[in-house]
Every structure is written in structure tokens, then in C-alpha cells.
């Protein structure tokens, strides 16, 4: 894979002195899906806006397939599609006309078969002659995606594509993203929904206070930072943890009716066998055994907390 987007020391500060981006460095490979996670005001949208030309960066450089976004903005922007966070559409325009307009604006000649295929893929073909104001919120989001795809971009930015969208439509969006990836489109998405990043991203970037805290392969990140817990539910509650079971990895559940054991899945010995034999030796009667893996959300919260500390 080759690098399609290269961000070097990108900074953006405002007149009041607020630094929205404090020297962001990021390389994105062609064909991957990278999710940028971050709390509100972390700088996710500013980063996307600076790359796409909506906000003027204070310093730093960005290249798209080798084209600088400042000195060679035409070539760079032609490769980029942007789906903004806010649903911004001309309310009285027909769906098909607004998508055709987007293609023309990017300097591409009309291509009705392509527009038709985009609209069909996004389930908008039946609504092509409707005015945008007649569409539902979910449909409007699809129109934004259709507009962004109309000029056949190689890099697609999705700024919180599923914010305020119902569960069903969110799943639809994920399928659309998967289709686009299959076509070789590189996707950079920002999201509040960590499950979204967990479900569709190849890599995760965590951004807070204008800085990238971490960029890592999703699976490696979850394996590295993810912890597993074993909950041994007991038939009768305990007042205190028996001496033979006391360890930094074992604690008593809130109601005293369970033992919670934290372990590392990558370790050679997880210690589960010993724990269970110790439990049996104490004469405790088991009701059930449950295991849990920490989610990306737990990892994210840990990272952001560490950064704040």
C-alpha cells in the first residue's frame, strides 16, 4: 500500500490564541479506513476542514497523492470528497441536480450513468426528482454522500456520518463504507460512536486537545490495551475475600456474590485454572462463570484520561 495522505506538523490557531491543532502528523495508506476518535472540541472537524480547504491552516503541510493542498490545490482537492457533519443542502433543489452540480463543480464532465449508479447504491434513485426538503433526515445524509462521491474521489472524509442517525440507518452507512472500501476508496471518518470505529475501521487515531495521542491498528490496539475479566458468580455472598484468593488481580463484586478476576489474554498462563481450583478448595459453590473483554470505549476513555492527567 502507498501513502495517499501525508499530514506534517499541521497547526491551526485562532486570533484569540486558541490552538485548535497543535502540530498534527499523520500518514494514511491508500485503501484503508481510519477512524479519528476524540471528545468534543478535540480538533477532529478542524483537521478535516484544514485538509479540505474550508479552514486555512496556520502552518504545516498536507499532501494528497503527492499534491500539496496549498500550492497544487486543484489536483489535491479533485481527489478528495467530503461529507460534512451538518446536513447542508439546498432545500428546493432536486436530488439529481444537486449531485450533478457537485460533479461539475469539481471540474468533471456530466456522467449520468455514474450518477445513476451512485444514487441506486445509496437507495436514492427513486427520490431523484424529489426536492431535498421532502426527504427524511437519513435520506439527506445519503444525498451528502452521493454529492461527495459524484466526482469519484480517491479519499473520502466522513465527518460524524451517523451523528443523530437511527440504529438501522447507521448499519446501512457501515455497509456503504464497506462497499466504498472494496472499491479502493480511502476513508477517514470521525465519530463519537466508538462502536462505529470498532465495527468498520482498520486503524484508530485518538485525538484530544488538537493533538494526535495515538494511531494504531485497531486489532493490535485492542489486544495491547484490552483487558479480559472473568466473573465467578457465587451461590452465597461473601463478607470478605478469603485469604487464599487474595491477589492484585482478584476483587470481590459489589454485592459480595461474585469474584472478579482480571487477566491478560496474551500471557503464557492466564491463571484461570489456579483460580478455579483455589475457589473449589475454599468450598465455594459456583452459580455461573462469565468473561468480558474491555471495549475500544474503555481504551479510549483511559487514553483521554491519561492525557488530561
Amino acid at each position: 500500500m502507498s501513502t495517499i495522505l501525508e499530514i506534517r506538523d499541521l497547526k491551526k490557531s485562532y486570533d484569540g490564541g486558541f490552538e485548535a491543532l497543535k502540530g498534527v502528523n499523520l500518514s494514511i495508506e491508500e485503501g484503508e479506513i481510519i477512524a479519528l476518535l476524540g471528545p468534543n472540541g478535540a480538533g477532529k472537524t478542524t483537521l478535516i476542514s484544514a485538509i479540505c480547504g474550508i479552514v486555512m491552516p496556520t502552518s504545516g503541510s498536507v499532501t494528497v497523492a503527492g499534491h500539496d493542498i496549498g500550492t497544487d490545490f486543484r489536483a489535491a482537492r479533485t481527489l478528495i470528497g467530503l461529507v460534512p457533519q451538518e446536513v447542508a443542502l439546498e432545500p428546493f433543489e432536486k436530488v439529481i441536480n444537486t449531485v450533478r452540480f457537485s460533479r461539475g463543480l469539481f471540474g468533471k464532465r456530466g456522467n449520468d450513468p455514474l450518477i445513476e449508479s451512485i444514487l441506486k447504491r445509496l437507495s436514492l434513485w427513486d427520490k431523484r426528482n424529489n426536492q431535498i426538503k421532502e426527504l427524511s433526515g437519513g435520506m439527506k445524509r445519503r444525498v451528502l454522500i452521493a454529492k461527495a462521491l459524484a466526482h469519484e474521489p480517491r479519499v473520502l472524509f466522513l465527518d460524524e456520518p451517523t451523528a443523530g442517525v437511527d440504529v438501522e440507518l447507521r448499519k446501512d452507512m457501515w455497509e456503504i463504507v464497506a462497499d466504498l472500501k472494496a472499491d479502493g476508496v480511502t476513508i477517514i471518518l470521525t465519530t463519537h460512536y466508538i462502536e462505529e470505529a470498532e465495527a468498520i475501521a482498520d486503524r484508530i487515531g485518538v485525538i484530544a486537545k488538537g493533538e494526535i495521542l495515538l494511531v494504531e491498528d485497531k486489532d493490535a490496539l485492542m489486544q495491547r490495551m484490552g483487558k479480559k475479566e472473568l466473573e465467578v458468580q457465587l451461590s452465597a455472598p461473601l463478607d470478605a475475600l478469603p485469604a487464599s484468593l487474595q491477589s492484585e488481580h482478584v476483587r470481590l463484586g459489589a454485592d459480595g456474590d461474585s469474584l472478579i478476576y482480571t487477566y491478560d489474554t496474551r500471557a503464557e498462563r492466564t491463571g484461570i485454572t489456579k483460580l478455579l481450583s483455589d475457589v473449589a478448595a475454599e468450598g465455594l459453590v459456583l452459580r455461573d462463570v462469565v468473561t468480558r473483554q474491555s471495549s475500544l470505549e474503555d481504551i479510549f476513555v483511559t487514553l483521554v484520561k491519561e492525557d488530561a492527567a
Partner: protein
Amino acid sequence: MNWTAIKSIYVFEMTRFFRTFLQSLISPVLSTSLYFVVFGAAIGSRINEVEGVSYAAFIVPGLIMLSVMTQGISNGSFGIYFPKFIGTIYELLSAPVNFLEIVVGYVGAAATKAMFIGIIILITAFFFVDLHIMHPGAMVLFLVLTCVSFSLFGFIIGIWAKNFEQLQLVPLLIVTPLVFLGGSFYSISMLPPVWQAISMFNPVVYLISGFRWAFFGIADVPIGTSLMAIAAFTGLCLLVIGWIFRTGWRIRE
């Protein structure tokens, strides 16, 4: 130049105009007809000829200019303000287009609409007065330049405005008085000397005078001065727009 983008912007804007074609057409025709009835027939019948031209005919160039200037400003300002207001400006800013292409697309469409209205008023005028255009080429030139320059001016207002009130502020408080006091309905020579001198600071005087010259061969100021005035105004607007796009003032944060 990204001609495809310019064409897209132009066509998109003109589609909006034709979507409300009847309103766009009826309003200027009705208001012009009213002006002809009130100023031409009712009051004009009691006014002697102005510099050898019947009063009803004399006000035609001023009436066309009045509409063309206000239409140019409102179309030019609304064209760019609306995407700012509803947020669709993001697409324009992220597209591979430069400022010149954006301006040609939006201002071109705004000027076309203004010219359309100007021509409709001219046609309406033929139903009310006996009109003969002495210099048709100059008339078209002045019409085009005025449409373009006032659409450019409107474009600047559209970028400057932060809300709908501001969008109306400049046209209502500055442009309309200047146009009314710019000799739309009278010759500057009819004013007392002091007011004649003051009027010379009103840029609209030069435009209306030049346009009227194209119709009847009579003018308050020399035709060359009128042309220079409109060229200077257009140049100034272009400079301001160039600066806006270089600095990103009120469009790129």
C-alpha cells in the same frame, strides 16, 4: 480555468431564477407599469419636456437603471449569502476552483438575471412611451457594465453580511437613496447649483447620465467620464473581492 465548474455554478444559479420565473417577471413589470402610470401619465402630463425629451420617455433609462442596480445587488448578494447561510458553502470551498471561477459563476448569473429584468422593463416601456434609442451599442454596453459591477458589489455585500438584516442594510440605506438622488427621475441640471455640485459625488449620477445619453444623446456629465466612473467602480469591486479570497475574510475561518 475550470470552465466546467463555472458553468455548473452558473446553471445552478440560473435554475433557481427560472424556478421562480413568474415572480421574477411579474414584479418588475408591475412596478415599472406603476411608475409609468404615476410619473409618466399623471405627473408627466403636467411637466414640460426635459431637454427636448418627453418626461415619460426621459425617465425610462433611470427606471431601467434603478431596477438593474437593485436587482444586481440583491441577486449578487443573495447568490453567495444563501450558501453561507444554509452551510452549502463548504462544497464551494473544498472544490478545485479559485476565486475568479467562483466570482465568474455567481456574478455572471446575477448579472444575467439583472439584465433580463432590465430588458423586460425596456420592452414594457415600449408599450407606454414612444421610444427611440439613439446609440444602441452604448446602451447595451452601459447595461452590461452596470449589471456586472452592481452584481460584483452585491457579491461583496453577500460575503460581508452575517445575517439577513445586514444583507438588506446597504441596499436600503445607501443604494436606494443614491439611485433616487442620482437623476433617475430628473436631470441634474434641474437642481440648484449647490445640489448639482453635491450630486457630482454620487457615483450613480454618472451611470444614469451615460445610460440616458445612449438613449437620447443628452447627458449631465460627459460620456467619457461616465465610462471611467463605471470602470473604476468595477475595478474597485474586483480588488475588494480579490482581497477577500486571498485572506479568506468571512468565508474561510
